[in-house]
């Protein structure tokens, strides 16, 4: 089973290398805790597709708001990916 939480954190670390991702609150919005903007979220979507062949349709972008929602939304996709 893929560690979806870690996969998302790894991608964020590459996209926003100046940010400290060691103590993120899974329930809080990522944008509340990190300096991320809408373009960064597009990069996250892009990297999920490039690295893991996981597609996130535009209408589902809000589901990537927090680490917890990322895990809930992406985990089934990793099972079938």
């Amino acid at each position, binding site marked *: 089973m893929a560690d979806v939480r870690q996969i998302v954190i790894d991608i964020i670390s590459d*996209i926003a290398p100046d940010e400290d991702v060691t103590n993120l609150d899974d329930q809080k919005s990522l944008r509340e805790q990190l300096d991320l903007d809408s373009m960064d979220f597009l990069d996250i979507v892009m990297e999920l597709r490039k690295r893991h062949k996981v597609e996130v349709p535009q209408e589902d972008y809000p589901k990537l708001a927090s680490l917890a929602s990322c895990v809930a939304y992406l985990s089934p996709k990793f099972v079938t990916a």
Partner: protein
Amino acid sequence: MNDTQRIVMTGIGLTAPNGNNLTEFRKALLECRSGVKHVDIRYMGKQVAGMCEFDEFKYQSKKLRRRGTRAGSISIYCANEAVADSKLDWAQVDKSMVGVYLGITEHGNVETEEEIFQMHQNNLDWKLWSPHHNPRTVANSPAGEVTLNLNITGPHYTLGSACAGGNVGIIQGVQQLLLGEVDVALAGGISESSQTFGIFAAFAAQGALAQHEDASQASRPLDKNRNGIAISEGGCVYVLERLSDAKKRGAKIYAEIVGYAINSDATDFVNPNSERQVECMHKAIKRAGLTVSDIDIVNMHATGTGTGDVNETVAVRRAFEASNKTYVNFTKGHIGHCMGAAGSLELAGNLPSFEDGVVHPGMNCTDLDPECEVKNLVINEPKKVGNVNYILNNSFGMLGINSALIVKKYS
């Protein structure tokens, strides 16, 4: 002339393959230290090229570097260094009256090639094309990145002018200051060309790509054994101000810009035209109110190609026939061809001559091509010439764009 109509250089920020500030760069030029190395170019393998080694994160976060471009990174470094060097009280400067004018040879090839490469690596999945592609490749991008970085709200744009870009950027800055559009111009030229595959392959196809076992000897302008261009990246940005403003704040003045000209060959896509080059130099001298004998140093564009060097030599010989005291040098033997940055960088390399009275030599011209002989050519060793008052800087480019810029020692 009224001091509000006189434009001076009060700050310099640069990165070249052999130095990341004016002191380092000048020292390397005087010591004949090359910055050209062998590097691995995608698909082509080992090629000679000049890469800059400045600290990309001195003025930019890792995230914004990733989002932006190499051209933007070079521009941001040079602009910040120039502002720091000028000792402008940046917090107090009216940012709406600052303009950014950067000459470029081309822009966007690095990013486009990378996107296509990534798509090929991923079964032509076009959905992997980056959302950053457009802001990265719009032609104003390098200048725009400077405004984002320095909170400049005045005008910004790049000047697409092939390898005349470095001079053209400066000329644009001068003109905008004279028009009263801005009070401070960050002007010069930049290039990230050595990061692209296409430019290497195209010069190779033209038979104009420099090759040598010892990369430091690959760029050999005017030498009998020259075999092409060593492609380099680089940048040089000046702080330009009206003399009245510079005096008011007691700024150090590197030089006054007293003449310039830009013209077009209208003869060929790539082959230069000596006659138009002579006209360009003479037009700049006339605008400065000088005669050819007033010019102490001419920096040749001299790229190291067969016909380009001969044509320019013919032009310089003809343009300065009436002068016996004009020394001639070139810079690309040391740093290769920094494309859009060449004009502004090469001018910077000669500016310290106003203080030390020394002409830096052209490098790697060990067997001068008789067709490239020109009066008072300074090669391989620096020459102490005494008082230097005027420098003329040549910068020419494809599609027949010629530029000449004249700076005067300020006293």
